[in-house]
């Protein structure tokens, strides 16, 4: 019997650029109904990304050796790196789910629940997409939707080096302080561990009955090696 199942793949550490082309290929495959709904869980190496229309001033002075990409998404500048859990749901929104804000709120709720499992009380804040612990931001959200198939997603700071955020004005909010699960009293955890909890919460929040583990190799098989055309490398 067919049931709504979310396939979940842990990809480990993936270059930002490669992750983008992978997502493009998966989105196309999802649109063509060649694959089902999928959740990618991964980590990026150090990278700064600028949204389209992002103010470059918000990237104060990047530390040497960290690439900067301009990405086809909304929002301002953000940082990704080791110790930060990245979740990219590639799912087809259907019927009443075709509501962009509803989707964002569901992602936020899933993050809040995940954090709750670790005893961290987090919340969303009105008008500020993302998840916060008090006034400190712990997770960022930025999604793309292509013919009602989602890409990009969320970044949850697990135990990343928060100093990398000092070089930017995260999300264009001046004085925005970042935090991580490690800084909120969960020093002993790792990204892969939180990934399992997040998958569980995302699956439930997005209305799936069950989760199926998918091998990373299966996921990569869908993706050609072709380079992504949607953003321009802007290494600096």
């Amino acid at each position, binding site marked *: 019997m067919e*049931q709504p199942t979310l396939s979940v793949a842990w990809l480990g550490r993936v270059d930002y650029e490669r992750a983008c082309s992978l997502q493009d290929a998966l989105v196309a495959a999802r649109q063509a109904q060649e694959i089902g709904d999928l959740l990618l869980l991964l980590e990026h190496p150090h990278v700064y990304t600028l949204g*389209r229309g992002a103010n470059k001033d918000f990237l104060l002075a990047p530390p040497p050796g960290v690439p900067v990409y301009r990405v086809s998404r909304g929002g301002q500048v953000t940082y990704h790196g080791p110790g930060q859990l990245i979740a990219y749901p590639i799912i087809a929104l259907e019927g009443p789910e075709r509501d962009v*804000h509803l989707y964002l709120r569901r992602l936020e709720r899933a993050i809040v629940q995940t954090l709750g499992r670790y005893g961290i009380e987090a919340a969303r804040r009105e008008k500020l997409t993302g998840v916060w612990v008090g006034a400190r931001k712990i997770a960022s959200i930025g999604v793309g939707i292509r013919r*009602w198939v989602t890409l990009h997603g969320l970044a949850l700071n697990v135990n990343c080096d928060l100093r990398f955020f000092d070089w930017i004005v995260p999300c264009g909010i001046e004085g925005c302080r970042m935090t991580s699960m490690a800084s909120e009293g969960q020093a002993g955890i790792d990204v892969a561990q939180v990934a399992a909890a997040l998958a569980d919460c995302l699956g439930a929040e997005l209305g799936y009955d069950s989760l199926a583990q998918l091998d990373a190799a299966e996921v990569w098989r869908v993706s050609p090696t072709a380079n992504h055309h949607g953003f321009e490398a802007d290494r600096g």
Partner: protein
Amino acid sequence: MSIDITMPKLSDTMEEGKILRWLKHPGDKVTHGEPLAEVETDKADMVMEAFDDGVMQEILLAEGESAPVGAPIARLAAPGEEIKPAAPPSPGALAELAPAAEQPESAPVQAAQPPRAASRPVAVRKRSLKEAEEPEASNGAAPPAEAAKPSHPEPGGDGPEPKAMPRPEPEREPAGATRDTAAMRPASVPPRTTAPAHEHGDQAKIKASPLARRAAEEAGVDLAQVQGTGPEGRITKRDIDNFLRQQQLFRQRRLVTPREGLPGTWEELSKMRRTIAQRMATSKREIPHFYVTMEIDMEEAVRLKKSLEATELFDEAITYNDIVIKACTLALGRYPRMNASFENDGIRIHPSINIGMAVAVEDGLIVPVIKECQQLTLPEIARAAHRLVAKAAQGGFTADELSGATFSISNMGMLGIEHFSAVIVPPQAAILAVSAIKERPVVRNGQVAVGTTMMLTVSCDHRIVDGVVAGRFLQEMKRFLENPASLLV
């Protein structure tokens, strides 16, 4: 004829959107389905696609600028048409958004509007939706609303605003829910039958125990709203707890109002509805159901519940639903074949009793699971059940909490249902349908008397059990419910 492209509505709560980037520019040929622009709302961006063929004539909203939903953002010239200077949108153009918002299935984005007569050239860059909604005096066109919904007559509507259809107001309570005080409620407290003792009382003047006062303060409860049950109407901590639970129930009621359909429309299935459709169809197709019903005398169970309330033996108020779950667990322990699955042409008898409780939510139902019921006491079952019901109202189940049931219970007592039978949730062997506790004529010692009874119907998979097992299982439930002291052991 030019075609207006308007800011798409990507969410019920979206008011305006920003153009991140135009992917087509004036003079570019546009084919149906081609990406036109990237639109951003909140932290999401979406590629908007063309809905018609044509040539991009004019861009009305620059990159990085925002416009309200429905405002024209670009204009497309029909194929072969000479590109003319900009023409303003007719008032109807904006109203057209309403159907776009209601029919998300029609296209990812309602990118283009049906052609209509263009009117005076005006350099419109950005205009608010409100301005644009008002038909200009010189324009004798029909009111926007009429133009808006040529194919979607609103039932009883006369001149509706060009907005998305209002959601059904979920305030109503299910009929009979409050009147039938003996009705069963899933994980709830008895309904309040009297009005609050103090309508506008001063918090300080209201009699309340210090514990209750503190609890009320912590939870932000106005004591005047709470009915005291202590001596001389004194409010106890328990009254506050009950009040809070009741509030929660009301919130939950808002959620359980089924989605109402709009006559004459077709709607795509949500994931939840699709799951229900697949599961229930599979169940009825593959499982040979049979149904067995028994009337249970609930007089003793009602008394037990009242005495538990009076003695405040447990922190958690015990509901009839909890009592039924406990009795069911005990009966399943004696008839393990009812707690089984049909698997690979064999019967798997489960080692644990995990009971799924069907809970109505908006647009469907979910069946959260109380695990290992055989190890739980009545108050423990109550705590687990209440937690799951509260969660159902707020959302946020983990996959684990929704899976692994070995037996299910569907309770429609709170709706005053006389008797019903439920569809088995595959791969379980059976499901118990619980109806309302009602006063019914009963025969005692050859005399007709007024009794308090409840109907239980169990639906069984005939591949796994036969009528005699189902019957014995119900007899066992009857024994426990009619001698409810057994439930406290």
